[in-house]
């Protein structure tokens, strides 16, 4: 399965999570969540409120090369300034937020700050709005375009953002938080991966799980309409 088809599986599963959501927000470089929210609004949940950094309820006809491109603001229902977005979450009014993690641990905490490999510091960009959003949004959804034991670790060296993730998406599987165990468990395994592969590439204990459902033709049609050039595959490269 090529990278475009793989990303379609992830987008579809993200979109279906939003069927009962009140609102969703995605930030920078968030191509998969951008397409998932667009699908959810068109197919499953027309009342879903889409918060973006550049405006309230965008209605884009294309996905630009930046998910915070001011072009998106031209197709919004109302203006919204970035600072207000954080206020919305701090007030407890934000339902789903999509957060990327450079490093993700078994609790679903994120490290987007830095790691030390021996004496050597490896610097990440920082967590952007993640620290607040993970802690205050009702259902944080974490995602990452790569899956290896340096990324999915038992415990992150630095906690940039902590909260209770609703789901965690990797290019191999989907995790959910089991609150009684206090850690992530595998909910679905993407059809191109396997329990053995995930066990080998994850720094904490994992389980077998059923395959991720296929994306539907309607979903794929919207993805291809909004992203005809396949920008989304950059996430998985």
């Amino acid at each position, binding site marked *: 399965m090529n990278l475009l088809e793989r990303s379609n599986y992830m987008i579809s599963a993200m979109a279906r999570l939003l069927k009962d959501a009140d609102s969703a927000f995605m930030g*920078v*470089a968030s191509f998969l969540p951008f397409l998932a929210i667009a699908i959810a609004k068109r197919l499953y949940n027309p009342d879903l409120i889409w918060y973006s*950094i*550049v*405006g309230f309820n965008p209605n884009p006809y294309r996905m630009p*090369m*930046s998910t*915070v*491109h*001011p*072009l998106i*603001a031209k197709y919004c229902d109302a203006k919204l*300034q*970035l*600072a207000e977005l*954080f206020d919305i*979450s*701090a007030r407890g009014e934000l339902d789903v937020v999509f957060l990327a993690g450079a490093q993700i641990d078994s609790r679903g*905490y994120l490290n987007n*700050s*830095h790691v030390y490999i021996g004496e*050597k*510091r*490896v*610097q990440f*960009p*920082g*967590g*952007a*709005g*993640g*620290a*607040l959003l993970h*802690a*205050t949004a009702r259902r944080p959804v974490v995602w990452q375009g790569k899956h290896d034991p340096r990324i999915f670790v038992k415990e992150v060296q*630095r*906690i*940039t*953002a*902590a909260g209770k993730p609703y789901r965690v998406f990797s290019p191999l599987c989907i995790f959910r938080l089991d609150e009684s165990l206090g850690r992530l468990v595998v909910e679905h395994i993407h059809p191109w991966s396997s329990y053995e592969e995930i066990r080998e590439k994850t720094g904490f204990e994992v389980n077998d799980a059923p395959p991720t459902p296929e994306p539907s033709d309607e979903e794929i049609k919207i993805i291809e309409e909004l992203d005809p050039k396949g*920008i989304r595959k*950059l996430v998985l490269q």
Partner: protein
Amino acid sequence: MTVMSLEEAAEMVENGSLISLSGNLLFRIPAAFVRELARQGKRDLRVMKTAGGYDVDLLCGLGCAKEVIAGFVSFEVFGLARNFRKAVEEGKVKYSENTCYSVIAALRAAAYGIPFIPIANISKSYFVKERGFKFVDNPYGEEKVLTVPAIKPDYAILHVQKADEEGNALIYGPWFEDVLMARAAENIILTTEMIVPTEELRREIDAVWIPKLKVKAVVEVKKGAYPGACPPYYDMDFDMMERYASLDEEGLKNHIWEVRP
């Protein structure tokens, strides 16, 4: 006179100043101004922004910055900010990491004229302790409240689409933190795509949220956000950003003289 050249405006910024930069990532960034700061060999700047990109990377890579106060520094699709990373990894720049929300809170406190401001509880994040953010008793309730101190920039450096000669200015599209920075800062330096007559600016008064107060310089710089975008006039230069993302310190030294202003 408020209208001046880019060189004159950059000369106003003393070494060691705390500057906050307009825009977000690669959008409406004061790129030409930042290049001029680098050409003048500024040192020890403290640079503040919620989400930086080209501007922060360039100042770090050329040794102009000693501290970055931000929540994120990267180039989005163009990859990681190589020179920023290297400077932080080698200890040449202190990354006073925040979350965008706490940078905004620090600016709000400065804008409101108060010493600190309560924020939502993000105390599990490691940088809360590193930054020294403190809990205080809530005088009206039970639970303790996390606070951040005000940060007042010496200069807000804003790139806008239109300004008049006195420094009234409009912003088309998202403000990001720019209007807040203008309120919080001690002084404002504007670079603008075009200087227009005051009467013309008044016709678009609904977009004019930067009054001339505190504006110390107005510089007309066409394509002042290049290689970033300044909608509705131009998008990012994708080829240039791809090349920029792979430049090392030597490459940056050439870049600031090749890309003029």
